[in-house]
């Protein structure tokens, strides 16, 4: 079975994001970029499926500028076999990403598609769901455990009330949550092998997808600064403040 993993190049989680002076977006010049942490978990899961003999090939796809190839190489160094780069300088929105991924799915015919549940830059939490709808496949989001048996995949999902286990017919879409696994470090031999692995580049036009944005960003601003806290003298005072000032109870 082939597994397709989508990875996104995002601002590194260690970086303190700053808004551009003209409020049109987050300032990404001279900022460290990295693979979205949830995507790392997706790659790790796919590589583990391969190591267990469940998957035969792991293909990673990334949509973004030329530099996104760094993240594809990272995934190849972690153990993926092949990369597909959909190159575009447009800031592609979730729906367009899902459409591009659908085109790649049609070409690659994977048995399982794993994505991060969301990317830490825009926090949309939409792409996996949209892709499932477009492909007509079953979806299991927020996975904390994935077991493939035969033509089925059993996925434990992290939901508000606890854990919910679902069984899906393959091919299916899985999106990862934090507890699914702990991604490994890339090993030196794999880093050195990564450069010899195939990486194919295509454009959105090749895939017949129009990626022109449909949303208009009006303004991006930093969250309001937190004001200093105060110490309360007693539980009574705390309760009274929660009731009367914060009005949360």
């Amino acid at each position, binding site marked *: 079975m082939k597994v397709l993993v989508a990875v996104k190049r995002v601002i590194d989680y*260690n970086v303190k994001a700053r808004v551009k002076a003209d409020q049109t977006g987050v300032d990404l*010049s*001279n900022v460290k970029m990295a693979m979205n942490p949830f995507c790392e978990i997706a790659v790790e899961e796919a590589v583990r499926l391969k190591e267990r003999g469940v998957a035969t090939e792991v293909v990673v796809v990334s949509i973004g500028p030329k530099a996104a190839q760094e993240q594809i*190489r*990272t995934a190849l*160094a972690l153990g993926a076999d092949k990369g597909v780069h959909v190159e575009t300088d447009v800031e592609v929105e979730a729906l367009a990403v899902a459409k591009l991924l659908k085109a790649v799915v049609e070409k690659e015919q994977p048995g399982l598609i794993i994505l991060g549940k969301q990317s830490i830059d825009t926090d949309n939490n939409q792409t996996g769901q949209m892709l499932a709808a477009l492909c007509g496949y079953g979806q299991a989001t927020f996975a904390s455990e994935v077991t493939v048996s035969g033509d089925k995949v059993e996925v434990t999902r992290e939901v508000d009330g606890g854990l919910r286990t679902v069984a899906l017919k393959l091919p299916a879409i899985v999106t990862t949550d934090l507890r699914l696994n702990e991604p490994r*470090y*890339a*090993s*030196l*031999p794999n*880093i*050195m092998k*990564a*450069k010899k692995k195939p990486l194919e580049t295509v454009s959105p036009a090749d895939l017949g997808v129009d990626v022109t944005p449909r949303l208009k960003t009006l303004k991006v601003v930093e969250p309001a600064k937190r004001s200093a806290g105060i110490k309360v003298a007693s539980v009574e005072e705390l309760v009274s403040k929660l009731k009367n000032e914060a009005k949360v109870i």
Partner: protein
Amino acid sequence: MADYKAPLRDMRFLLNEVFEVAKQWETMPRLSETADPETADAILEEAAKISQSLLAPLNRSGDEEGCRWENGQVFTPAGFPQAYRTFIEGGWCGLGGNPEFGGMGMPKTIGAQVEEMIQSANISFGLYPMLTAGACLALDAHGADELREKYLPNMYSGIWSGSMCLTEPHSGTDLGIIRTKAEPQADGSYAVSGTKIFITGGEHDLSDNIIHLVLAKLPDAPAGPKGISLFLVPKFLVNEDGSLGARNTLGCGSIEHKMGIKASATCVMNFDGAKGWLVGELNKGLACMFTMMNYERLGVGVQGLAAAERSYQNAVEYARDRIQGRAATGPVAKDKAADPIIVHPDVRRMLMTIRAMNEGSRAFSTYVASFLDMAKYADDSATRVNAEALVALLTPVAKAFLTDRGFDSTVFGQQVFGGHGYIREWGQEQLVRDVRIAQIYEGTNGIQALDLMGRKVAANNGKFYELFANEVAAFIEANRENPALAEFIAPLSAAIERLSDVTEHVLNQVKSDPNAVGAASVDYLDLFGYTSFAYMWARMVLVAKSKVEGDTSGFYDSKIKTARFFFSRLLPKTMALAESVKSGAADTMALAAENF
């Protein structure tokens, strides 16, 4: 304590923009097979990740807990065995190793950056793989094929580790007087007996086997350094099929309780007729250590830089945060009770000094590493010979100057914290304690200075020195008309003239005074260090000036400003050093020993 952030930007600047190492690799067939810019970059990224998230978190806990000795067994602190597993699974022990036996064959210019990150995160941890890498170098360069085939693959993979057993209780600097004996056996092996002390990683719980490289003498060996041979003595004997056999007759008698690097086991090793095999030729043991020693000494120099880099990162964060007093030019943080201490010129002096020395050190170690690569991989012999001479000349400077200044810097970094720098929880005092050993082991810094001045400069009548001076002169000549560099070229040429002048002076003094070298050597090494750092800074600034326009990151602008600080505030030390050196040995030796 600030989270450690690997200085990848500066490393890339040096590798890709200043020294353009990829161009060097292209000219060396054995390197061009393994190394290319993208792979190198991916390696740096991953080394940064491992250092930051795997090794740095164990630094303080390792120091608090230390190693434990129990009935001959040594236990490393909590978390070390697991971290070591992860580390070796990544293949990091074999980074610079020979690909024929499973090494990665990466150049030292990359290795030096990786070592810096590992040592910044955790010097104690870093020593275990560092000793293994050193043992592998000696074994690969001088061992018989059967030994290399049998031991190198498992050492490069880290499943087995290495140790270097030189020092004995009565014999440290002067290895000529060691007493450990090696008796030839009928089967071609040797029975090694004796006591070694201060053996880093001599025993521990990280690897399945420990391969000791031991200096010893045959019963009929000539006295002194010419009678020393090198032996490979494994903790567990290795069967023909590669599996582990009987325990060899050697053991760890105890471990030292020491000032720093507490998570690194420093062992007393007793060899009791232990089975060993000769590495290299009989009585050539010290010579076998030389190739390895240049790599190790550069690696120890990098420890000095690594600790200073960590100290700097902490100190900068603290200086921006700690408020105390007001800026001399008027309040800066008007909404606060006081200004952050980074406004005070004396705090700036300390931070700028650390920064200027660290960036100079990183450039210098990369520069020396590039000669190590040329000496090992260059195709034509002229380039190799030239590079070998420069490695010989510059390695003692890298070892001593980077660790002496690195130690100073960790003290500055501690000073920035005031009283809090003396308190354990901030981590600054540990860096001072941990880096202190780098000035002592792998040949004390005093011995490095003697080596530089005696063996590398005086012994060949300044021939090696001339190679270096000519390179600097050529750089000056090429940039004399460059207006962007004018402010740096003049002081650089004054500095190299001063060094050449002092070198000649000493070469003359040596003829009449046997103490001349010994009395002047440490000051001479410092003079050499500051002068070569001036050359490094000029090279960095040449690149920075050409790229500063339109750069919004501030990187090149900071480079140029730090270069100015180095030239105006630190390079003038060379004048005082030159005066000291030229004053000769008489006043140093005047007092009778009994009058001290």
